[in-house]
């Protein structure tokens, strides 16, 4: 379980998060949703210790993210942020292999090589393995980064907008992949832009608005025209297909 208690965060004088307390259940796929600027990425970065925590407390499976050594946390959770600028010119396979770093610290074993291969297969990257990242399209590069996070083999996988730049086939495939991970006993927290991906694939949804938690619960409870309409400030029609809510936000 990820436990966030009383976390506030400001950048300059702008307060991004206001006293947030939330629990993210273990062994589930949790989707973070909300309008632009709601603080989703900030919350995810704070959980993933990418930014220093200003106030409050965050723990992942009981391990405090401030006090626990970063190396131990790396085996507990993998976080992938929205934009990644690399300093070195890498091939896809080399990048994904870095995901195993927390386990081998520079001396990969046969087990590590196997895990990297599995991650490449999972994201259909075998054929691109020897290509340089800069010679890939945005979506292909995004898949390579997701494969790296996957190869890290951590219990928790935190992904910030992994579906950005992906075509719909790969978007669905990645969400399905995350659900398989849950079946393997791992937990996933994912920021998604398209509410329907959250509605269909997530077990738990945390909706944010203006730096506060606006709603949380299973998709059926959060994805209603009342709740979402309030959060996004628009009229929404919600129907149901195969027992899953479907938000008709285009209409």
């Amino acid at each position, binding site marked *: 379980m990820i436990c966030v208690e009383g976390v506030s965060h400001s950048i300059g004088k702008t307060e991004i998060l206001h006293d947030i307390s939330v629990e993210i259940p273990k062994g589930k796929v949790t989707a973070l949703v909300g309008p632009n600027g709601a603080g989703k990425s900030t919350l995810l*970065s704070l959980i993933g210790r990418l930014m220093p925590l200003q106030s409050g407390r965050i723990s992942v499976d009981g391990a405090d993210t401030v006090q626990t050594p*970063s190396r131990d946390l790396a085996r507990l959770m*993998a976080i992938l942020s929205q*934009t990644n600028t*690399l*300093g070195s010119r890498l091939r896809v396979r080399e990048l994904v292999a*870095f995901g195993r*770093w927390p386990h081998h610290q520079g001396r990969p074993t046969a087990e590590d090589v196997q895990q990297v291969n599995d991650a490449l297969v999972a994201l259909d990257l075998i054929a691109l393995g020897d290509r340089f990242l800069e010679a890939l399209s945005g979506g292909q590069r995004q898949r390579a980064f997701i494969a790296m996070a996957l190869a*890290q083999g951590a219990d928790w996988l935190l992904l910030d907008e992994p579906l950005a730049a992906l075509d719909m086939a790969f978007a669905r495939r990645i969400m399905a992949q995350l659900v398989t991970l849950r079946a393997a006993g791992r937990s996933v927290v994912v920021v998604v832009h398209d509410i329907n991906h959250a509605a269909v694939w997530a077990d738990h949804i945390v909706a944010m608005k203006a730096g506060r938690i606006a709603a949380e619960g299973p998709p059926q409870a959060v994805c209603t025209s009342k709740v979402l309409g309030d959060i996004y400030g628009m009229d929404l029609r919600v129907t149901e297909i195969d027992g899953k809510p479907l938000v008709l936000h285009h209409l």
Partner: protein
Amino acid sequence: MDRRLTALTGALVVACAAYLFWGLGPRWQFILGLRAPKLAGMLLVGAAIAVATMVFQTLCRNRVLTPQIMGFDALYILMQTALVAGLGVGGYAGLSLSAKFGIEVVFMTLAALMLFGTLLGRGTQDIARLVLTGVIFGVMFRSFSGFLARIIDPNAFAVVQAASFASFTAIEPALLPVTGALCIGTIGVALWMAPRLDVLALGQPIAVSLGLAHDRLVIVALIMVAVLVSVATALVGPIAFFGLLVSGLAHELTGSARHARLLPMAILVGCLMLVIGQTLFERFLGLQSTLSVVIEFAGGVFFLWLLLKGRMR
């Protein structure tokens, strides 16, 4: 790949031998005594600048920046000018070499940490701001030393000038033991940290996610860069584009992003260029010019080539 390393090592040994033993003549003991320290100095400078540039580029995640472009050499000149202005020519000349060197290393390290530590420590992705900061500081240091140079007397200015131009001919043998120990120690640490530098190059978010002690490593790397640049500038004076030339060639020759391969390659390239260049100058061109001028020229052309080829990131 490893064949290239072996070939370059062989070439370096041959080049060193050629520099030492070519045209010795009857008074060989005397001449060897002159050449050996100079050779040692060149090897130290070549290796120091090579490693400093590679580590700095990893820190900035950019292949065109070098510590020199970011104003480290301007800081060195400012320090020389300030020392001469503060102590006078007599005081400056009277400073013991090791004291002067000690001051320089400590000061450069502190300044580097202050200038770039805050910028890089926060894992800024903002290369433009980083470059701009470096350029602005560079201009500021140069203007300061220009100002100081105008108010000191002409004799003192001549001393400053002598200290602010790179010269491989005037390597001070007395400095070699201290600089050598510092330089070899720092390069050893850099080689030992090579796998961690690979992770550092992935950028702050990924490095942190992979459990690297990012901020601490940034500071250690900055200290290494500052020490190595100080060693090189104290021995021969500032050389701007040499590091760029070396790192660019090392990248082209290895075709790998692994520091465990890049660093040794850069060291070999750096040493080889200096030794061959200096041999040619001393034997064929009769010391008509200085090596640094040619290196700067070649480096500048290479810099333009990198820009035009779009390798600047």
